């Protein structure tokens, strides 16, 4: 079975890239293949709680990340180094993944058949 990793590396709502990537991710989950979702760099900000994109007339996709498990996405990883750089508290972020170091994340990426990032 072919596996795929999705890398979220951009902050939400200023750009639509991550929402579009999330759509591909959810669609791919219907194909029953192993999916890894990785949040790194500014992408970790996707997981910040209490986003209010409605103010900007944008659809709130943050909640959709919480549904990843329901969609059968087993592996959700958050880059520890990026998390530290952003000076966030774990309590500020949606509790949907495990924190992993760059090396572990790079290994997951290296072992995936496909990698998508927008």
């Amino acid at each position, binding site marked *: 079975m072919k596996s*795929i990793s999705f890398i979220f590396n951009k902050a939400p709502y200023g750009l*639509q*890239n991550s929402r579009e990537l999330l*759509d*591909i991710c959810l669609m791919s989950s219907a*194909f029953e293949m192993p999916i890894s979702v990785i949040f790194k760099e500014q992408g970790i900000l996707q997981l910040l709680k209490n986003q209010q994109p409605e103010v900007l007339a944008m659809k709130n996709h943050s909640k959709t990340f919480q549904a990843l498990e329901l969609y059968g996405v087993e592996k959700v990883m958050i880059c520890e180094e990026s998390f530290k750089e952003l000076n966030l508290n774990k309590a500020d972020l949606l509790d949907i993944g495990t924190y992993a170091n760059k090396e572990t994340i790079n290994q997951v990426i290296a072992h995936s058949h496909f990698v998508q990032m927008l």
Partner: protein
Amino acid sequence: MAIFSLLVTANPYSQQGQFSALKFVQTAVEMGHQIKRVFFYADGVLVASRLNCPPSDEINLTKAWAKLAIQKDIELAVCVTAALKRGIVNQAEADRNALTGENLDPAFEITGLGQLTEAMLESERLITFG
């Protein structure tokens, strides 16, 4: 020989990605590789409008893709959600959404996002041009 699929998200006349994708497909086919599908997503869908009309001394990317698709039998798929948002419509979508016209170049086909994953699974490599 390998089987490739492409994901093209680059804005046709603001970013270079579309032209790079075009050259990649041309070269890959010349070298005997197979292109399963070229999937246009995000701003990449804008290239599918046959109303794109760049100055005559600049490349017309829509026509360049169409020519390549016809000559080499390449499938050009356009994401329906991304396309409708950006005013890229075929007759069926125009009728369904009560729009005054259609503008999809006949070399392109409007499809769903599932076609991207399907193409990927039947390819050895998926290459993104953003």
